[in-house]
């Protein structure tokens, strides 16, 4: 409202200028055309008066329209929409209610990273008046008003990964925590509304909100979040006549819930002490939406240089704007400093190393994804047939395995041709801490130019060596993260060391609980190019900036190339590659394996991305994008059916568009 008013204001002033110009011009004309014009009357309207008049008029009209709008019956916009797009299809909730589905199993939502709201409970002087106001989520108004203060409060303690002294920022609780991320930008709201159609309400729905900045175990240490989730699930099962819950984690929530399932059965000092039967007794199904089981390459670029494709592109458009200290803000450095205090970002570093993500010269995906085929995606069944042709057209093999390479030539050359300087050798090189007077802490300022050069000299990093790289450039961060997360593959899952909580969120280092009746779904979008590997360059910029950047000038050869703007893309949901979201359900847990000793059935449900046909559809009802998929009607229908009692078989079992099974075969994972 206020925004639009302001906009009106500027509009009017602009047109006012225009008007005044024309008035002048017009005066000239009059002089020219009517020589017998009288002298100006003293009472004539000045520009200022006209201005006021105009604003007043616009305001009045605006208010009048607003009044009309408010008195208008609520159904009119719907009529308009229907008139334009034709009759709307029933949302799945309405449709399924007509089929007679009703509330059956209680539902637990586990939100992902970033989408949950955070509010302030205790802050410094600068955050006065923000008590119990949202710092994250909602309008983000404070971010613009007092950015430094905001960044300070959103950061965690650099050493402990917990609250800094004097600051308490806590997750918002209840369904409001993550129904909308910002005003109008739904996350869970559509799903909630549809579930409510068949009778769900607060007592049968529970949002397991947690502080997504913390490492998973720390949410329990600081807030007892895991205990609360356990208690709430137990309560819902008890009050709903012993019906088991259906858990719906999204994004990082998937890993969080994996952690929870191990935690709840582990004995008390470290775990929740629920006993080995707990999951079997309380959980009917885990329906993972867009789950980054094996990590996300995006998190590497996030940790390494705080950028993702979007930011990198913005940087090329306006090279000066973000990097230069226009307002003395040093946006990026502050952002980097803030995000680096968040342990949770490290939970999504690619896991499984070269076995999963590919080595220097191979990757499970090969080049089978047609990156240029975005437009063909509407009928993706045909698309799978076309893939061989495209392979012929685009012969160049994409080396997805090289998650970071310095320079395009390095990214494409065969490994034998790359001359690499060993990182470990340069580790020993003398450390010349350049004592710059940057007032901002990031570890890059501690490591010196030699090491930065050494990083670039190593040329190519795979999912395995990326860990070394991160350890190298930010040792403190990784030391902190290493205490909470692990990224390997277990050789022997019975090794007692795997009882430590740091392995619980890595599906390759834990066994699933003993719950043969439980079901695990992997539901994710496909058909959107997703960041998979990066081409980097060393910046020549000044002292206080981040020394590495995605080299956005690097483009692939042809239209269909998967290399665009320094980023290699693969199939996925824009954030999580198919490989990460689907591999565990397709191979790692399929049948009785060592990761899934009780043989919990797994189902893959892929949703092919179809962008919204027009603006009226909003974010689309068939979207496959990482967050927008929460409004995908097919996915919602699947969830409602399971919540109302259906099994995976009744849904139709696997539902696959991508080549996940082919890729899974190429991965040599001992089961």
């Amino acid at each position, binding site marked *: 409202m206020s925004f639009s008013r302001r906009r009106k204001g500027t509009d009017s002033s602009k047109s006012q200028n225009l008007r005044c110009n024309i008035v002048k011009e017009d005066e000239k004309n009059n002089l020219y055309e009517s020589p017998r014009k009288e002298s100006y009357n003293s009472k004539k309207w000045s520009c200022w008066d006209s201005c*006021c008049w105009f604003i007043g008029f616009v305001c009045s009209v605006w208010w009048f329209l607003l009044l009309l709008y408010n008195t208008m019956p609520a159904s009119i916009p719907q009529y308009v929409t229907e008139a334009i797009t034709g009759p709307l299809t029933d949302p799945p909730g309405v449709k399924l209610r007509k089929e007679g589905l009703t509330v059956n199993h209680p539902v637990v939502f586990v939100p992902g990273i970033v989408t949950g709201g955070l509010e302030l409970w205790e802050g410094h002087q600068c955050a006065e008046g923000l008590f*119990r106001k949202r710092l994250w989520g909602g309008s983000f108004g404070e971010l613009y008003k007092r950015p430094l203060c905001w960044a300070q409060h959103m950061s965690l303690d650099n050493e402990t990964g917990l609250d800094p002294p004097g600051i308490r920022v806590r997750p918002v*609780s209840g369904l*409001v925590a993550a129904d909308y991320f910002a005003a109008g930008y739904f996350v869970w709201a559509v799903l909630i509304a549809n579930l409510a159609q068949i009778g769900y309400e607060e*007592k049968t729905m529970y949002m397991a909100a947690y502080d997504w900045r913390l490492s998973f175990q720390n949410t329990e240490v600081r807030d007892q979040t895991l205990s609360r989730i356990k208690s709430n699930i137990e309560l819902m099962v008890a*009050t709903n006549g012993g019906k088991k819950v259906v858990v719906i984690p999204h994004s990082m929530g998937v890993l969080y819930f994996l952690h929870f399932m191990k935690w709840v059965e582990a004995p008390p000092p470290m775990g929740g002490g629920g006993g080995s039967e707990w999951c079997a007794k309380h959980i009917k199904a885990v329906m993972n939406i867009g789950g980054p089981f094996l990590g996300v390459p995006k998190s590497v670029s996030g940790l390494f240089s705080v950028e993702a494709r979007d930011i990198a592109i913005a940087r090329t458009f306006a090279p000066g704007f973000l990097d230069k200290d226009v307002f003395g803000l040093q946006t990026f450095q502050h952002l980097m400093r803030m995000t680096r205090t968040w342990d949770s970002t490290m939970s999504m570093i690619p896991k499984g190393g070269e076995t999963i993500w590919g080595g220097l010269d191979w990757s499970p995906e090969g080049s089978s994804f047609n990156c240029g085929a975005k437009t063909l995606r509407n009928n993706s069944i045909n698309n799978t047939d076309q893939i061989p042709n495209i392979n012929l057209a685009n012969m160049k093999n994409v080396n997805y395995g090289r998650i970071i390479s310095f320079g395009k030539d390095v990214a494409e050359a065969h490994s034998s041709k790359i001359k690499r300087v060993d990182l470990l050798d340069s580790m020993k090189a003398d450390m010349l801490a350049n004592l710059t007077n940057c007032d901002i802490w990031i570890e890059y300022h501690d490591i010196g130019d030699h090491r930065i050069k050494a990083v670039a000299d190593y040329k190519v990093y795979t999912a395995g060596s990326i860990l070394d790289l991160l350890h190298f450039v930010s040792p403190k961060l990784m030391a902190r993260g290493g205490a909470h997360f692990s990224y390997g593959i277990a050789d022997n899952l019975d090794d007692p060391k795997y009882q430590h909580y740091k392995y619980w969120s890595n599906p390759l280092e834990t066994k699933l609980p003993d719950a043969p009746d439980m079901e695990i779904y992997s539901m994710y979008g496909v058909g959107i190019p997703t960041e998979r590997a990066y081409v980097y360059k060393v910046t020549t910029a000044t002292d206080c900036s981040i020394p590495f950047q995605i080299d956005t000038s690097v483009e692939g050869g042809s239209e269909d190339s998967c290399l665009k703007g320094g980023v290699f893309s693969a199939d996925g949901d824009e954030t999580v590659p198919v490989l990460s979201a689907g591999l565990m359900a397709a191979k790692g847990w399929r049948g009785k394996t060592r990761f899934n000793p009780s043989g919990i059935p797994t189902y893959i449900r892929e949703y092919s991305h179809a962008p919204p046909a027009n603006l009226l559809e909003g974010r689309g009802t068939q979207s496959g994008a990482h967050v927008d998929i929460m409004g995908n009607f097919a996915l919602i229908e699947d969830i409602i059916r399971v919540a109302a009692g259906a099994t995976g078989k009744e849904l139709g079992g696997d539902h696959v568009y991508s080549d996940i099974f082919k890729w899974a075969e190429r991965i040599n994972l001992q089961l």
Partner: protein
Amino acid sequence: MKAEFYDFYCLSEMASVLRFRKLCYVESAVKCTSVGYESFEIDEKLDKKEEDVLSANNFALEINKKRKQPKRQPKEWRCLDSCCWIIGYLCTTWWLLLFFYHCFPVTLLRVPELPGPGVRLKLEGLTALHPVVLVPGIVTGGLELWEGRPCADGLFRKRLWGGGSFTQIFKRPLCLLEHLSLHYETGLDPQGIRVRAVPGLVGADYFAPGYFVWAVLIENLAKIGYEGKNLHMAAYDWRLSFQNTEIRDHALTRLKSKIELMYISNGYKKVVAVPHSMGVIYFLHFLKWVETPPPMGGGGGPGWCAKHIKAVMNIGPAFLGVPKAVSNLFSAEGKDVSYIRAMAPGVFNSEILGLQTFERVMRMARTWDSIVSLLPKGGEVIWGNMDRSPEEGHVCDFSKKSHSKTSLTTNNVNNSDLKRGFLVKDLANYGRIISFGKPASILHSSKLPTSDSKVFSRTSTSENFNNFSCGEAWTEYDEMSRQSIQNVAADKAYTTTTLLDLLRFVAPKMMRRAEAHFSHGIAENLDDPKYNHYKYWSNPLETKLSDAPDMEIYCMYGVGIPTERSYVYKLSPNSRCKSIPYQIDNSVHGEDGSCLKGGVYFADGDESVPVLSAGFMCAKGWRGRTRFNPSGIATYIREYRHKPPTSLMEGRGIESGSHVDIMGNFALIEDIMRVASGATGDEIGGDQIHSDIIKMSERINLGL
């Protein structure tokens, strides 16, 4: 054509307008007329440059839409123009100021706020120790829509009640009333409508924007380290009867589970419960429910309260009911409403807009079982009979009640006999909760017609012919004949005991429904197995406290505000359909210094709950080891004398004693925080009494 439009804009070129009247194109003519600018006569003119015309045309269109000023008197400002000008001017100035306001550093503009007790106690070294459970009262909790009729489209999960603004009430009042009503027979959801309590702290922190309920307390608790994990708002649907909140929403089970969780996850620290208003009896119900075995109760076992609860700090407790509930159920009005009615008699009663506000409100309120829980309990033993009441001799002083009150009351105590001598001629008969006409409220009972409850049964059955001409019956009054309505008034005066008969008579269905959930008597023998039924659990006079000798019970309430205690009624003058036949007779006033004003007798209290109801259980009923309190749970009375805010800066006051504003009373907050961080009742100073509650309790003859 171009020139014309320019001229008309510049306002000084009348002559040229006339002269160039013919300069226009055909196309432009079409356009000009189509936007309704008819003061032009536009003719053809071919010798004009096309570009000029086009540009001018666009511009003219824009102006045309915005102006209707006639060309004839261009030098005069018309009223409309001035209006626009003024609005524009104001808007611009406003935006400019707003802009500056936002540019200012935040600290510069902040009203110097009084530091709450939280800051001070933090410096003293208090930290969060016991988890805190807040139990909101009636009306203050938010309600949101989960399923509704078509008229409530787009309100899914939006607040219907509390929290946000009440804009929806103004937009679609009838729709909202329909959704807030419950089913008249069952007291549960009507078909196709689900309205649920808003969970979490947001459920009752603010009632309306800026009108705090729990927010101040929460903020101060947060200062010493409270947060989501050790602070819980036990939101429940306050329209339902207490047991129904469990049946429909499992609210009691959730509360139990939450308390157990907080107890364990905070290092086995017991919980401090802070109920407010009706939440007090709700929590009383909970305490019984939780220890009762499963089919009816929560199955926590007899030691549950002792194990999990450190203290119950009741704020403004309505233990023995509130007389306000009587007037609400009887005629949907309170003191405030009857004043308004006196001032603007036409607005509410007339059928303007067909609103019939009162009738609709009454229809809604009577579907809410919870209001019945607030009817006065304990009958004549507690609330007084026709000729005596425990508050006898209370001196009402409306004129100066705030500052010099302390000295006044000490005088009162000393010279009470003297004062009674003065006032004996106009003594308030508080015992008569409802009397018809002033004489009935004053005369001695022997001079009144005997109020015989048999009169109800006789009339109700015999004269059940209905005036069906009114169509659908709204309230149960519509089902009563005119005769029986007058019979009720002829009975003149009712005490709390006969009042229940009266209500059963005028609203039989409602009372039948609600009395399955609530009881208002006094138990003769508490070991009678019938008292195991849940309908007795919220009545402190019909239940035993649980066996938890280490628990503490606080009664914290404001005093020094005149509080409705009994009413003088009259028959409502209009006799049309669907109207409420009774209303408070606001023309009745006592003499100066009398407690009777506008048809309402006032007693000491916190504006809603009389001292008697709030303090009696702590002062006498539970004090020491009584039959109501067999394990001897310690009780403390903490009274807070009302002081209205001295300046506007203070907002609703930091020493207020009124029913809701007391939640911002710094002294009360400090007490709660001290107890929450580990202090006992003795450590915060034991009893703190300003009113005559002890004396009143002595007059009440209750077997303990």
